[in-house]
């Protein structure tokens, strides 16, 4: 009887230790990640605080991240003094068109490279890998020459062409990688039923490849939203400014340079893309690591 009690007691004691260990581990880990997350978000939090503060709050030496007195004046100035809505509209137009066009040209190409075996297939893929490693900023002047020769300089169309071309390799590659993981047998069955290649792509492949399509789209969207060097260099007409070129100008202007307005603009520019990203995040892992990064 006594022996049994100690045995039970021993189990309870071990369980308690185990539990204490788990709890302390969990506390430590949570503390660690709270600190990490805070450090990660610090620049954004700080910008947030400044953007809602009065302009003189910048110089205060206090480490408080939030303003003493909250004000919307920086945001009001942003929308009143700058054409941010035009920039936003241009960026949206560019981003959506680029996504649609990249998907439209990449789907058939990815299908070809995934499903057909033909002369020069491997060589072409390797050539594309090399091309993708070339930093496009180095051929900036030549890209500009091209756009000018096509009569598209200083237009949204010119930027669109450049963005589609720049992201075409990624689109092709990412989709091909995903198509590779879809068994050919599924297609064969549909073909037996008399489906054309076009039908197979539209009805069988694309629904199955939805995560890859979503991720490819989001990555292209992020690219366009984030691109500034082409936007700044190629567009000289403020009517065609994108958010990137507008924000860049906001910082560059000597006479108007105001940090609080700049911080407000930074957050306004980032918010939509942050939202899209959060919505797509669920698919990110399956759509990317299964796709584009694998040959």
């Amino acid at each position, binding site marked *: 009887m006594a022996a049994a009690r100690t045995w039970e007691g021993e189990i309870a004691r071990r369980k308690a230790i185990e539990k204490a260990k788990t709890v302390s581990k969990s506390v430590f880990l949570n503390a660690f990640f709270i600190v990490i997350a805070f450090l990660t978000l610090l620049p954004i939090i700080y910008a947030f605080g400044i953007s809602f503060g009065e*302009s*003189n709050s*910048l*110089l205060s*030496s206090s480490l408080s991240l939030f303003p003493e007195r909250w004000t919307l004046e920086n945001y009001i100035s942003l929308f009143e003094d700058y054409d941010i809505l035009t920039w936003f509209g241009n960026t949206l137009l560019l981003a959506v*068109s680029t996504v*649609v*066009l990249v998907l*439209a*040209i990449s*789907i*058939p190409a990815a299908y070809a490279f995934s499903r057909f075996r033909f002369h020069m297939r491997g060589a072409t893929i390797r050539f594309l890998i090399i091309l993708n490693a070339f930093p496009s900023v180095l051929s900036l*002047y030549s890209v*500009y020459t091209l756009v*000018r020769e096509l*009569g*598209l*300089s*200083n*237009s*949204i*169309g*010119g930027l*669109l*062409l450049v963005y*589609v071309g720049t992201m075409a390799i990624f689109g092709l590659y990412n989709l091909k990688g995903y198509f590779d993981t879809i068994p050919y047998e599924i297609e064969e069955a549909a073909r037996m039923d008399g489906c*054309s*290649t*076009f039908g197979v*792509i539209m009805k069988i492949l694309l629904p199955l490849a939805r995560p890859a399509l979503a991720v490819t789209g989001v990555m292209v969207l992020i690219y366009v939203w984030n691109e500034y060097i082409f936007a*700044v*260099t190629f567009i*000289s*007409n*403020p*009517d*065609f400014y994108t958010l990137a070129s507008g924000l*860049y*100008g906001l910082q*560059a*202007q*000597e*006479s108007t*340079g*105001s*940090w609080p307005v700049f911080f407000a603009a930074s957050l306004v520019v980032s918010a939509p893309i942050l939202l899209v990203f959060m919505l797509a995040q669920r698919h990110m892992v399956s759509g990317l690591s299964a796709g584009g990064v694998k040959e």
Partner: protein
Amino acid sequence: MKKHVAIAMAGLLAVAGLSSCGSDDGGSLVIWHDKTDAVVEVLRKAIEEKLPGEKVEFVKRDSMTDQLKLVGNDPSSCPDMYIFAHDKIGLFATIGILEQLDGLVDPSSYEESVPLALDAMEYQGVNYGVPLYYETTLFLYNRDLVGDKDPSLPSLPKTSEELYSYMKEYTDGRRYGFVEQHSTPYYASAWINGWGGKILHDDGTPGLNDQAVVDSIEYHRKFVDYMPRTSADYATVNTLFLEESADMVIGGPWMIPSALEAGIDIGVAPMPTLPNGKPLSPYSGVQGIQALKIKCRDPERRARIKAVMECFVDPEVQGELALVSGCAPALLDAYEVDGVRDNAIVKAIEEQAATAIPMPSRPEMDIMWSELGYLLTDVNMNGAGVRETADKYQEEALRLIAQMQ
């Protein structure tokens, strides 16, 4: 499949086609500028009054130099004219995108201008632009903190040594006696010029390690100890002045409107004199209007461009431009316009112009600006020795200039 291709193709073409038009509707003349709305308003009004029916579009550009280099020969993108400081005239003339003024605009209309402004528009004996107004940096101070507004305030330093003692006495963590963009070549050049140094000689050879340049940078360095050492960009200097955390600054006239708006009682004083007895001599920039060659080919357009340029050669227009921009007009008659002669800022700039030096406009200057910038930051921010650093960047400037040709 074919349908698919066709749709994609049509989409690409449609979007491309749709947006390519609209940028240049042929009808209106385009003028690029980097000025405030108030300046543009004056110019617009002048055109409306003198050239009724003429359509001119003013487009504000942020990095105009880079843009003009790219598009200067591309009629679909480049403007007809641009308004900018004179110091890029040499570059653009060398590239070959500027139209000569002779034969375009009648010289008798603008030759009664301040000589400094006329000289600035000329590069290698050829005239490229109509001067509108000119600016220099100014010695600005907060009258609530320093000067004669109140007997209890410290008096305004007249020499650089007095300035130095002032900085030593009043600079603490929250307040600066004097702040300037000490490592930005455009501002620091005032010290070098005052000392008699020349970063670029008239024949295009760099002078970074000339004795006078080295000495002036060495002398200037002790002042940096009492300024924000590492952040000396425009926004920082401007913010410090607006927040009443800087008693005195060297800044352009473009700083004045925001300071007035912030309620600063702003004063303009002569630049302090250096130990050699000469005052700091800032560079002056002459704002002028230039025409692009490619747009002047068509005789009809050329005539319109000529008319627009000539309509800015008017005392009333230039006087008003000077007042709204806080600069001094180029035309001598403009000083007789109401409110110009007795305007404090115009007067300060006019006086400053006596010792100011027009920025060199040779294309080599681009290299000098960046090499001098490196030299200044290495010395002021990172404590490098002046002599060896100056030698180093002089050599690099020589190499880069050789490479340019």
